[in-house]
């Protein structure tokens, strides 16, 4: 059981790192600016998932604190970027 769980965790980690590379490529070669913004948002979500997987592997819950900070900052920054793109000015 523990052996199977270990294998599944490492496989899931490798799959998510691959999807992170796909999203970074999407930010690099997007069709328009909104496409790149979607890629950036999904990149931060995938980094959150990778942090949780590292917390499972290490058996240490300190990585959850890092994930909380990352989620709050990424949500606020993505909303600010969307407002900047829509209005062409910040405030």
């Amino acid at each position, binding site marked *: *059981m*523990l052996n*199977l*769980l270990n294998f*599944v*965790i490492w496989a*899931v980690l490798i*799959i*998510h790192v691959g*999807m992170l590379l*796909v*999203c970074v490529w*999407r930010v690099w070669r997007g069709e*328009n*600016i*909104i*496409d790149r*913004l*979607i*890629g950036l*948002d*999904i990149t931060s*979500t*995938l980094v*959150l*998932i990778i942090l*949780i*997987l590292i*917390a*499972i592997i290490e*058996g*240490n*819950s300190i990585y*959850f*604190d890092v*994930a*909380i900070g990352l*989620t*709050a900052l990424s*949500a606020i920054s*993505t*909303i600010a970027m*969307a*407002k900047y*793109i*829509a*209005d062409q000015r910040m405030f």
Partner: protein
Amino acid sequence: MEMLLQIIGLIALIAGTLFSILGILGMLRLPDVYTRLHATGKVSVFGAVLLLVAGISLTPLSLGKGLVLIALLLLSAPAVSHAIASAAYRTGIPMKSNYPDELRKHLPKKK
């Protein structure tokens, strides 16, 4: 009890990974900005929340932090998706299919 937690974690890991793969595949294959946004919402709600359930059940001393993180994600992910879709509509990115645009007559005229 330990066995039950491990089985819950295993099922949540596999289901969340399937949702994430579907979302990324939709982001690569769908034709339009709005439909792509619809696909990537699945990653940030179902994928991340199911992986967090797995993390709570497999990591010791992580219940409180995990529940705070789930609440934060469920509050912020729809707001972020709505902000991106609103920015895309206001900058005038066209839709692929020509359905009638009901929102245009409720907005103030541009230029």
